[in-house]
């Protein structure tokens, strides 16, 4: 095996217990193997229930894998202890979908961003403050953000703050779990641009999870398509999303309504139904 990259997932299997004792467990991930290199974005695309968030959560240690290995810089972190997690938290961070739930409403932004530095790194108050202000600047938020509560910010601003929280620990890898799905189109563009800038500047690796093929194509170097917990297709972003090999990926790509269909049609005319053939 060649030198492992930033993150390597081998034959990952995650089961969720059934609701009742007799139910078979649900397979949320089934033999998933993925790899991310430094400064690379791997897009993970799939519909609800495909297990894409589960894979992210397994990397973050939020769900326990039933089988398989997760290697970070070649080191097995599949079953990291709490202590190891604390160290790993300085390398792997996360940005979640819901900018409302991802910030504690009863703590100031300064407290939320600073607590990891103080508790995990043991920095003093002043250094923490300088560090947090610096990170906030990087995500385009003013320094007085620190003394405010999440309720004072809009969804897009909260997502910037959530990104700042991830960056405070100076990670190498950020799991982006649907980071723009809760945002409006114009704000989504701002956040995507910010993520691209940060990657270019800091050399971050992204595991970019989304249900939106267009967003994934825009953000990713490589893309993996998930269906019922399995990777059905994996490869360079343009190739997978424009000329898919797998039947399911084709269905998925075809199902996305495209604006350019209408633009090609004569004005006033009814748009052609590009999905007509998919009816069967």
């Amino acid at each position: 095996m060649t030198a492992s990259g930033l993150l390597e997932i081998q034959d990952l299997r995650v089961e969720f217990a059934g609701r009742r004792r007799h139910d078979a467990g649900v397979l949320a991930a089934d033999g998933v193997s993925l790899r991310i290199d430094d400064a690379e974005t791997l897009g993970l695309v799939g519909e609800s229930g495909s297990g894409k968030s589960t894979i992210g959560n397994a990397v973050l240690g939020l769900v326990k894998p039933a089988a398989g290995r997760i290697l970070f810089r070649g080191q097995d972190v599949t079953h990291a202890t709490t202590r190891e997690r604390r160290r790993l938290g300085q390398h792997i961070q996360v940005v979640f979908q819901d900018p409302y739930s991802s910030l504690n409403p009863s703590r100031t932004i300064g407290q939320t961003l600073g607590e990891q530095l103080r508790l995990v790194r043991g920095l003093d108050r002043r250094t923490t403050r300088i560090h947090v202000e610096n990170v906030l600047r990087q995500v385009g938020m003013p320094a007085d953000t620190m003394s405010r509560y999440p309720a004072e910010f809009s969804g897009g601003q909260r997502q910037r703050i959530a990104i700042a929280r991830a960056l405070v620990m100076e990670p190498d890898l950020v799991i982006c779990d649907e980071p723009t799905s809760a945002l409006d189109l114009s704000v989504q563009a701002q956040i995507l641009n910010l993520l691209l800038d940060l990657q270019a500047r800091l050399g971050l690796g992204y595991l970019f999870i989304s249900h939106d093929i267009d967003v994934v194509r825009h953000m990713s170097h490589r893309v993996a398509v998930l269906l019922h917990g399995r990777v059905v297709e994996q490869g360079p972003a343009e190739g997978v999303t424009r000329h898919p090999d797998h039947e399911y990926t084709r269905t998925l790509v075809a199902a996305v309504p495209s604006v350019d269909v209408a633009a090609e049609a004569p004005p006033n005319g009814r748009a052609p139904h590009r999905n007509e053939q998919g009816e069967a």
Partner: protein
Amino acid sequence: MTAVASQDLAAPSSDEPPGGNSRPAVSRTPTWRRLLRRPLAVISLAYLVLLVLAAVFADVVAPYDPADLDLDHVLSGPSAGHLLGTDPLGRDVLSRLIHGGQVSLVNGGVAALTFVMVGVATGLVAGFFGGWTDRVFTWAVDVVIAIPGLIVLLVVLTVFGGNMTVAMAALGILSAPGFARVVRGVTLGVRQELYISAAKVSGLPTRHILLRHVLPRVTGPILVQASLFFGAALLVDAGLAYLGFGVQPPTPTWGGMIIEAASVISQQPWLLVPPGITLALATLSFALLGDAIRDTSAERTGRQSGNARRRSAARRAELPRPAGAPDPAALLSVRGLTVSLPTSGGTADVVADVDLDVRPGETVGLVGESGCGKSITASALLGLLPAGGEIRTGRVQLGDVDLTTAGKSLLRSVRGSRIALISQEPVASLDPVFTAGQQVDELVRRHHGGSRQAVRARTLELLTSVRLRDPESVARRYPHELSGGMAQRVAIAMALAGEPDLLVADEPTTALDVTVQAEILRLLQSIQAERGMAVLLITHDWGVVAQVCQRAYVMYAGHVVESAPVAAMIDQPLHPYSAGLLASMPGRGRPGHHLASIPGTVPAPADWPAGCHFAPRCALATEDCAAPVPLSEPAPGRLSRCVHHDRLIEGATA
């Protein structure tokens, strides 16, 4: 795991404005200070503090010794010497009341303290750690809740020789399970919050997470319940004293004073009043204090801080111009529609001066981001504005009926048979306690009547027409047994029951997976072709508009800013907002490169500028944009609310 549904759109009213840029510092004030702004809370608190102080300094404050007999002035009633009168032994009622508070308040405090400690500790642990702790907890709560509490208290009282402290602690324990359940519920909710996951990812210690993240979220409910329970405990304490338990006479207690009063009820009923009222007011104060705490903490943690917008007083948009004449060829013709909704600072116009036409059989898109007024417009068309919402001016002409002036009964007869609705959350838009079939039946019966069999036959026909594979089995199922796609098909069948001319589809596919979305859109198109029904499709998704709509209206901050045939608009938008939105679509950008984005966010209605609403975010804005901008017709069939629309064309060709 849920892939779709943007947060803002998933909310019940998708047009709730997202937060403005920076908010004033109102919500930063500590909870207790905001509590003191509520008069009822202040009065309650003052009364309770007064009671406590009086009890603590009873020896100084009380005008008489509570045990002093004055047999010459027995049962005197209120007088100058005895403000609250005297009891059957001539003892001063006021003094006895003040001393009585000592026992009662301490007892209440013991009960409340036990209650909080037991409830918080068990609820927090069970909720946060889950697993076997939670199973043991649930079982224990089930057991304790079924114990007949008061009787057990009596047992405890006998066992411990009338020791009220033990009895009150027992009361706290016996009452704690309900409270512990609340704490567990809140904790469970907080545990699933993403900020807890983020804290775990960073490796923060569990103790820190519990104390700093979970506990503060639980404090609100804790204070509320503790306050209410303190009040209830005072009542139980007095009740037990009334039954003859606890501190024995001659030591004064409130309950004891009531029993003494009861014995002379026919001679001096007044004696019932002082202890009863003192006690009731104390309990009332605790209850009101609890309510106030609940309201204040809801204010603080609310997603949209209600106070935040208070600074901008209610303001209404520019006076709407007189509405133009409706288009006689249109099925639906809206002119000058202005809708106001209540906000924390009064009311604000959230939809202003909207003109909109839908011709028979046509599919028209209404596009925009959340907070732009799309869904409110749809609600206004159907006469279903949320409470306090009002159509201020404008006409909504549906065929020969003006819906803005139509009476309730006319409106009801129009709904379903002329205009119908499908909405965003398919499963939530069906009643969970009736089967899919029963719900379609109801609307079929309403619109067509007929025998049971005829109605059911028509229902099955409708369910078949929405391409449900096994209509009979779907008809028997409850909403929670349906997938999102199936539920949306059932909802469409309900909407079709009255054979409407116009279907308002409010984000019908936003909550669905993209493959299911494609099926639903195809279904809508084919139904429309079969029936010649018009569709007004409200969406934020340009792809959906491009796929199914012939014409589209773009809304921004309450205004229609552009309308045009879809293909033409996508090819060459004539408003900078439409242009900006189209350019910020990831599907149209160069992968890995910056998307053209619009700076800032949609402002809240109270912050809309007097002139062009988009000006503050617009790259083309000049001082011309400070005055109200009317819709103009730069090209045939196209309308734009921009004075610089020609620069967009130049920009595109240059």
